[in-house]
């Protein structure tokens, strides 16, 4: 099996392949050593090493482009690297790694005096305008041990020097995958230690699919809400619910390049509103299910009647001017520098930084694309008419059974649910309670295990360091506990 995906961008500009002004990007510096979220503008910059580089050269470039820091008359700037065809490289190097199998490092004594080039020499080269590559070449030429090393060690040496003297910046699309990976690598606590394979399994097990109405309890910074919305692509709706009166943060949704349609599909509603709507009328959603069936349309661009969230914008229930500013988040233009100022007390939501010195910007001004509006009573009633099609919970600090007891009733029958948790025992208790109450079938607790490999000639092995834990998932399908013989319509 091999699969390839290519987007044709048929959904209105949702995931274009070329950056634009004000778009959100993920900068991968030196092969994952640093990961920085940024918004591209004429004024935004990124600090690499001790140099500040403008992000303007990145605007209009395809995602996937590689840049390198170069020094011009006006200081450091990012310059696009043209990919070298591997054909030439290959012929040149051949299977060198195999040839020197018999070579080993037994005679190399690490004395720290193998390098004849001093720090001053290098500084002098820089002053004279030497490129990173030239410095690396000089370092190799002046190393007394380089030639004795195995080609593997030589590569390692070069890579180390490249990272220092010629850092590379890869322009990446901020998708659920890359955002989750970036957070898991740098700040796993901010996404509740949710690993990307676990997130992907949550979405599968909850059957997140087009035109669904998905209720999420997202206490993992918004990564879950964003990932669900990305999958829905603006069809259906995501209801981000929360206990109490204060919504959970979903700052991470800002990292996605969501268009208007997707932003509008992300709604918030306190659990109390939802529960009270359901309890006002004790009728089960299943009773309306068939009635609504005839209204359903396949076409993704049409009205999705069971949600009230219109994908073509004209039947929106709340006029845009009525959006409650406090509860709606907005995507705004700021540049990478804003971290420092926000750390100094600029008001706004918690800044999300990926590194001591890197941050995704805080909100300052708004060219507003809003997401996370509060759901209106009308929307809630439309949700209620059908019941939610799936439930996803990622609330590391919450007892799963408490949440499930409140949230399972708002699901339609046969709707799948998936609950992420870091601890096994609370999920086990929850599963046991669901079994005893016969509220669900297909219950299982799973734990994915992810391993990455280094695949190199003669040096293939799993990575030596790995994440040994990504979390547990309890999943199941809600059923009618009684026989439904009498319910035929």
């Amino acid at each position, binding site marked *: *099996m*091999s*699969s*390839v*995906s*290519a*987007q044709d961008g048929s959904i209105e500009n949702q*995931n274009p*392949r070329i950056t634009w002004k004000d778009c959100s990007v993920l900068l991968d510096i030196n092969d994952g050593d640093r990961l920085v979220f940024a918004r591209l503008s004429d004024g935004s910059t990124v600090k690499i090493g001790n140099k500040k580089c403008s992000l303007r050269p990145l605007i209009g470039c*395809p995602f*996937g482009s590689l840049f390198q820091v170069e020094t011009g008359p006006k200081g450091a700037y990012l310059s696009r690297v043209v*990919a070298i065809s*591997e*054909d030439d490289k290959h012929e040149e190097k051949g299977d060198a790694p195999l040839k020197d199998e018999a070579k080993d490092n037994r005679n190399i004594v690490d004395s720290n005096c193998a390098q004849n080039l001093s720090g001053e020499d290098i500084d002098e080269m820089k002053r004279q305008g030497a490129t990173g590559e030239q410095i690396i070449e000089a370092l190799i030429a002046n190393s007394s041990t380089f030639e004795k090393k195995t080609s593997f060690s030589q590569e390692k040496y070069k890579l180390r020097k490249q990272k220092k003297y010629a850092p590379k910046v890869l322009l990446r*699309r901020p*998708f659920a*995958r*890359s955002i989750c990976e970036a957070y898991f690598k740098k700040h796993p606590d901010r996404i509740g230690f949710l690993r*990307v394979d676990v*997130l*992907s399994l949550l979405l*599968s097990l909850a*059957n997140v*699919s087009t*035109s669904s109405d998905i209720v999420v309890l997202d206490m993992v910074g918004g990564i879950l809400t964003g990932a669900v919305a990305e999958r829905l*692509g603006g*069809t259906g709706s995501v209801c981000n619910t929360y206990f109490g009166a204060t919504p959970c943060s979903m700052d991470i949704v800002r990292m996605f390049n969501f268009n208007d349609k997707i932003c509008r599909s992300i709604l918030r509603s306190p659990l109390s509103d939802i529960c009270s709507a359901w309890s006002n009328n004790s009728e089960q959603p*299943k009773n309306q299910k*068939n009635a*609504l069936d005839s209204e359903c*349309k*396949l*076409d*993704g*661009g049409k009205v999705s009647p069971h949600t009230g969230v219109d994908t073509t914008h004209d039947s929106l229930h709340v006029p845009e001017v009525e959006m409650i500013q406090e509860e709606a988040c907005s995507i705004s233009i700021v540049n990478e520098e804003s971290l420092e100022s926000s750390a100094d007390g600029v008001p706004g939501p918690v800044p999300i930084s990926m590194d001591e010195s890197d941050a995704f910007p805080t909100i300052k001004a708004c060219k507003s694309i809003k997401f996370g509006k509060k759901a209106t009573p009308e929307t809630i009633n439309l949700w209620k008419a059908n019941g939610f099609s799936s439930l996803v919970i990622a609330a590391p600090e919450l007892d799963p059974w408490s949440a499930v007891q409140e949230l399972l009733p708002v699901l339609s*029958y*046969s*709707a*799948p649910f998936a609950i992420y948790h870091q601890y096994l025992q609370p999920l*086990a208790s929850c599963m*046991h309670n669901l079994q005893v109450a016969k509220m669900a*079938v297909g219950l*299982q*607790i*799973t*734990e*994915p295990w*992810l*391993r*990455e490999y280094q*695949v190199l*000639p003669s040096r*293939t092995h*799993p990575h030596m360091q790995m994440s040994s834990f990504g979390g*547990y998932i309890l999943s199941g*399908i*809600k059923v009618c*506990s009684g*026989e439904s013989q009498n*319910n035929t319509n």
Partner: protein
Amino acid sequence: MKPHLQIEEEEEEEAIRGRLGSVKYIGDDGWVVNFVNFTTDFNSKPTFDKPCSIYVLQQYLTVILCINFRANRFGVFKHSDWIGKPFGSKVLSNKGGFVYLLAPTPELWTLVLSHRTQILYIADISFVVMYLEIVPGCVVLESGTGSGSLTTSLARAVAPCGHVYTFDFHEQRAAAAKFSIPDLPQPWLTMPSAAKMLKQDAVLCSFSPCIEQVQRSCETLKKDFTDIRTFEVLLRTYEVKEGSLDCGNINKGDSPQSLPCKRKQSSSRSSNGTNKSSATTVMAKPCSEAKGHTGYLTFARLKCLY
């Protein structure tokens, strides 16, 4: 096209035009699968000697459509009783046995297949869809349809307006929807042509059971692709039971308490004369057997060349 995804070879009872139908029987201790019929396209009748497009039509699944499921050891079920029932309903047999009527999902489909031949499992499938960054509107090419277990998930992810093109090289297999690991074609042969078909920055995934295929694929990929990464995903499942542990009758020595491995008895054994009581609790542990390997997933991103 129907034979491709139909896995039980019983005859049909009713002809249902192009709708998804899936029935799962839930036994006392988990899933027991009796029958699944899974037609994936509504109007067209594509054949597998040429690429075809597959949609998963979730919106249409409000009427249960089931065929060929007549009886299991818990009795005979009358299908006419089922039609029109809401999903999630429990329906009874003549003997009082029951089944739940569930809406089909790609995961249920995969679960059904997992009782049969080698397929991609849910952990791999989920990871592939996520890693390839497949969202509505994407166009995806799948080489090696196999059981269709990945196909249904790809289709779900690209819906409503994307496309999945899928093909298989094995005629009989495409018809029988089997796929066995050692006979897979060499993935590296398809990679240069894949590179030509892909858009810039598109991501490729290759699933290979053996490390040698991975080694060779990675070598080949280096020419046109970058960010080549290889992963393995496995799934561990846990079993949950209610039980208790013996707290022993340590000092007295007056009650016989030899505890050989009689697991069934332990929770009902009384421990007399101790001040330690063993309360019943819910206990979870990993299931003892698991899929030890499915395959290696190699991902690569097409280089930006212009």
